[in-house]
């Protein structure tokens, strides 16, 4: 059974911290660690917004968002999505039996995107599946209802009209 950070103090709220924490033991491969390093280097320049999901003082995953465009259509790009290796593929009761990655995507689409859209108009949420894995493309199309696979130049992007 998982509880969230400050669960006793704040009456079972979920906390999403807008700060970066190094997932020191959260990498499965060196590639993953290098990707985070690259992301942070860029973040330090661009100051993207990112959200870290914490429970029990543990950083479980994070999502970073950036503005982009596809064919002159403004998009909100899921720039970086990471889940600590210990929590991958696990479903959590407190997250409505979702995995961390699904929760972070739903959080982006259901909470953050509508807030941003009230300030800045964009048409799609876009996502580039890591390693262009077909399995991952299939997974995203399944967990993001009404999404669309844009194939161009031997690469796939997942788009969601918003």
């Amino acid at each position, binding site marked *: 059974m998982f509880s969230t950070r400050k669960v006793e103090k*704040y009456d079972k*709220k*979920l*906390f*999403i*911290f*807008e*700060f*970066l924490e*190094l997932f020191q033991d959260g990498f499965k491969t060196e*590639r993953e660690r*290098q*990707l985070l390093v*690259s*992301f*942070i*280097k860029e*973040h*330090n320049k661009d100051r993207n917004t990112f*959200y870290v999901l914490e429970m029990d003082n543990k950083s479980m995953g994070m999502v970073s968002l*950036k503005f*982009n*465009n*596809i*064919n*002159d*259509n403004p*998009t909100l*790009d*899921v*720039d*970086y*999505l990471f889940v600590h290796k210990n929590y991958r593929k696990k479903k959590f009761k407190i997250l*409505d039996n979702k995995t961390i990655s699904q*929760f972070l995507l*739903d*959080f982006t*689409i*259901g*909470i953050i995107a*509508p807030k941003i859209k009230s300030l800045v108009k964009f*048409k799609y949420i*876009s996502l*580039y*599946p*890591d*390693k*262009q894995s077909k399995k991952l493309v299939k997974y995203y199309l399944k967990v993001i*209802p*009404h999404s*669309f696979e*844009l*194939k*161009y*130049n031997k*690469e796939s*992007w997942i*788009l969601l*009209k*918003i």
Partner: protein
Amino acid sequence: MAFKWKNGKIKRVYPPQKLPKKIERELEKYWEETVVDMSPYEYIQKMDIEIVEGKAHCFQPEK
């Protein structure tokens, strides 16, 4: 994940800026035929989520 690993180096990837007509039409069709449906996300909208704004707690990437 808008990065990719190529020849041992990490490269940023960008969405296509200009699409061929055929793909452009597919995208337009998707836009026209898709109804924005937020119902799959109702569960998360009902959750008691607090977004705590914090300062970046950054580590120094290796040079």
